[in-house]
């Protein structure tokens, strides 16, 4: 008889959530983690530490511009990067412990070491303290992703850095170049720009935020960031790093013309790739796609019976919450319940100031699918709470089906967008229409009212706009 019903490899948000859920449902579960701390990329070097730094630097910025709010002595205000990093580490450590406690509560056995697919129904865990074979009915691979490295400018941890380094710089670089205007680049770029670094974001695409966002949304976000001193070099293809006695520089080209951006630090944030290192995928015959992601079926099962995979290591948006949903669904399926992930309604957020968020279809997506849409927009400049909170940059955009009024998508640039988007997700999950949002009572004054107003604007019935 197998020791375990389920062995999960990887303790990121996909893996640990799956383990907790499976434990909750009465399965005997082991969780394999190669790192010292639980929580994977998200908790240790991703979402959480970056949020901590974003908050610390936002507090600093608020204080720095606090004169109009009656703060005195702001011109002499300084900060301590080391203390910020220490606070970040404390946040991470607290959550590491929290995850451990939750797993323990669900009787999940945590096994330290690098998990590897051995024979069918076996996971080999290798660690400095020796190897251990776990017999199991099911295996869940949740090994996540790692930053993509550009072949012509490998990470050196000094000049060319990844997000892993970008959350731990000991000092503020005078000049920082961020390669890639996605969520990671914009967030870490913001962190260091807020602390005084001259940040230039170099992006190959014409607009920031990636293809999920409509051009008007991306543009509004970009202009808000530009006001904070971040420079954007769009449509520029990075070619390499030039190092000289006077310092380093990123080289790029646009329309065939060479560009050069001096930089103390070059943060490469061009995306992440599936991580199957040490998994023994090839030996086990595990099928991967052309991008190295594990191929799964509609029930998260790989080509190997009893072996499942979720999160960044499979196709789909590389988002912690997507992995968590999949983790829950896999656990439910294994426990004989009905697990399901609604991939159409997975929000995306860029945690800058203002935040940028979206869910569902963009206006462009809808048009590409030949869906006739009605658009409702509401500028935050018309929202009372936004005005009172120095958060008037941005707007909320609602994309509704012209025929049924169903919410197809919501995009926003707004302070607090990461929280506001949840309301949109909930409405959409239940098939809500723009009118449903308009007829839902929102607390006043809240920035969220902008979402309600944008929904009303779909039928041109917004109250607080002309």
């Amino acid at each position, binding site marked *: 008889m197998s020791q375990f019903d389920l062995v999960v490899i990887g303790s990121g948000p996909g893996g640990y959530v799956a383990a907790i859920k499976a434990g909750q449902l009465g399965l005997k579960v082991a969780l394999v983690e190669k790192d010292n701390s639980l929580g994977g990329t998200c908790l240790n070097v991703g979402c959480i530490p970056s949020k901590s730094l974003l908050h610390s630097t936002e507090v600093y910025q608020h204080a720095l511009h606090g004169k109009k709010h009656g703060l005195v002595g702001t011109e002499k205000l300084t900060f301590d990067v080391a203390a910020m990093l220490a606070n970040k580490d404390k946040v991470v450590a607290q959550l590491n412990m929290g995850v451990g406690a939750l797993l323990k509560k669900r009787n999940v056995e945590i096994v330290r070491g690098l998990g590897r697919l051995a024979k069918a129904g076996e996971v080999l865990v290798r660690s400095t303290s020796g190897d251990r074979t776990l017999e199991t009915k099911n295996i869940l691979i949740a090994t996540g992703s790692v930053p993509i490295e550009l072949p012509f400018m490998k990470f050196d941890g000094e000049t060319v850095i990844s997000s892993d380094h970008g959350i731990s710089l000991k000092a503020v670089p005078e000049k920082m170049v961020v390669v890639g205007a996605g969520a990671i680049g914009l967030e870490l770029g913001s962190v260091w720009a807020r602390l005084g670094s001259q940040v230039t974001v170099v992006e190959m695409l014409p607009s920031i935020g990636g293809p999920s966002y409509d051009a008007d949304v991306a543009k509004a976000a970009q202009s808000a960031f530009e006001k904070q001193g971040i420079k954007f070099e769009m449509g520029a293809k990075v070619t390499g790093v030039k190092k000289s006695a006077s310092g380093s520089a990123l080289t790029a080209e646009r329309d065939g013309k060479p560009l050069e951006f001096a930089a103390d630090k070059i943060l490469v944030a061009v995306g992440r790739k599936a991580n199957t290192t040490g998994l023994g995928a090839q030996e086990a015959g595990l099928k991967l796609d052309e991008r190295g992601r594990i191929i799964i079926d509609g029930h998260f099962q790989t080509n190997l019976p009893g072996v499942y995979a979720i999160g960044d290591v499979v196709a789909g948006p590389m988002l912690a919450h997507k992995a968590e949903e999949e983790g829950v669904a896999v656990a439910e399926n294994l426990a004989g319940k009905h697990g399901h992930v609604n991939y159409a309604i997975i929000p995306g957020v860029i945690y800058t100031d203002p935040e940028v968020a979206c869910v569902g279809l963009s206006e462009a997506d809808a048009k590409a699918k030949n869906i006739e849409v009605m658009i409702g927009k509401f500028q935050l400049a018309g929202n009372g709470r936004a005005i009172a909170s120095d958060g008037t940059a941005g707007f909320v955009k609602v994309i509704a089906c012209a025929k*049924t009024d169903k919410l197809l998508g919501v995009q926003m640039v707004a302070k607090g967008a990461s929280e506001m988007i949840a309301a949109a997700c909930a409405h959409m999950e*239940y098939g809500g*229409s723009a009118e449903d949002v308009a*007829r839902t009572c929102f607390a006043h004054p809240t920035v969220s009212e902008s979402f309600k107003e944008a929904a009303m604007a779909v039928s041109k019935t917004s109250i607080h706009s002309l």
Partner: protein
Amino acid sequence: MAVEVKIPPMGESITGGLLATWLVKSGDAVRKGQPLFSYETDKVTSEGTAEVDGRITINVEAGTEVLVGQVVASIEAGAAGTAPPPSAVAAPAVKSAVTQVAAKAPAAPVAAKLGAAAEVSPAVRRLSAETGLNPAGIEGTGKAGRVTKGDMLAALAGQTPIQAPVTAAPAPSAVAQVSSPAAAVVIPSRDGRTSRKRMSPLRRKIAERLVQAKSETAMLTTFNEVNMAPVMELRKRHGEEFLKKYGVKLGFMSFFVKAAVQAMKEVTAINAQLDGEDIVENHFYDIGVAVGTDKGLMVPVVRGCDQLNFAGIEKAIGDFGKRARDGKIQLPELQGGVFTISNGGIYGSMLSTPILNHPQAAIMGLHNIVERPVAENGQVVIRPIMYLALSYDHRIIDGKEAVTFLVKVRQFIEDPQRLLFGV
């Protein structure tokens, strides 16, 4: 003790209908015999009454389609209600209750009660309130089958059928929550150039039956004209005394019913109908009299017209007319007619071709009485003339029989003494 209020049986062919309006509210005190709700089937509108005194709790909102035997409310026997019961179930009290509800109906639409009973989104609630379309009867495309605004719009546009959710429980209390809009809810179009409303079950049935008659029979119409002077003269002469004696006016209808009965006795093919490949000849004279109401045409049947005298026929027709308009005709009163008389003349029709009341074989149309110049004995004279029409199913009635029938009717009307002697 709680007594269940059920949809009463309405006759063999009726399995369900629309609970159109509640005449009482949950918590009201009701008295035995008090009308509680009006109930509309494809054939008739009727009322459900309380079986005991007590306090009522309503389970099914107005506008819901219900099954015969379905529990729609319960009455806590003997309990006092939040509103006092009507002091008696005398007609005036009931009447005022009906008017009150009718007046309130547009302002407090069906869906106002949906609330906790059906968790639907606010836009769906609004649409339901405005149109009367109950989302419970719509197949939802939202999460776990929830009805979305789009589903409502599609149903209202007639793009998706409104159907009964499949229910596993066979008990009659398992509600078939099919719903249908309350009768008179009109949805204006966006530009206001059109508006639409759902057919009521009665209207749907009328439509179905009319098309059936048109498509399943070989229908044609023959005409004749009749001099109404003799009947008018008789009414003038005996009308006052007739009214005094019987409490009902001597109208034209009794003459035509009597004339039709006598003509049917002579032309028996008229009083017959097809049943598969058999011709069933009737030896009774139950004649339907079409009555227009605001909900549509109704044809209550006057039984045994050969046995009734003029007063009996006039009384029966008068009673039907009144009750039809009040929506109080009982279903059995609509069933079993062998022949129909329809009088478009009261609306001013000069001539028409009535459609058969399936499965009857013939229908006679009466029209308005107009003074027309006619030739009599070589002289042009003015006579009050009515055109008669007889539509008949040519499959079982030949032209000769149809024409003869109508000629007989004409003869009886032009010389009512013939009715006395049957000649």
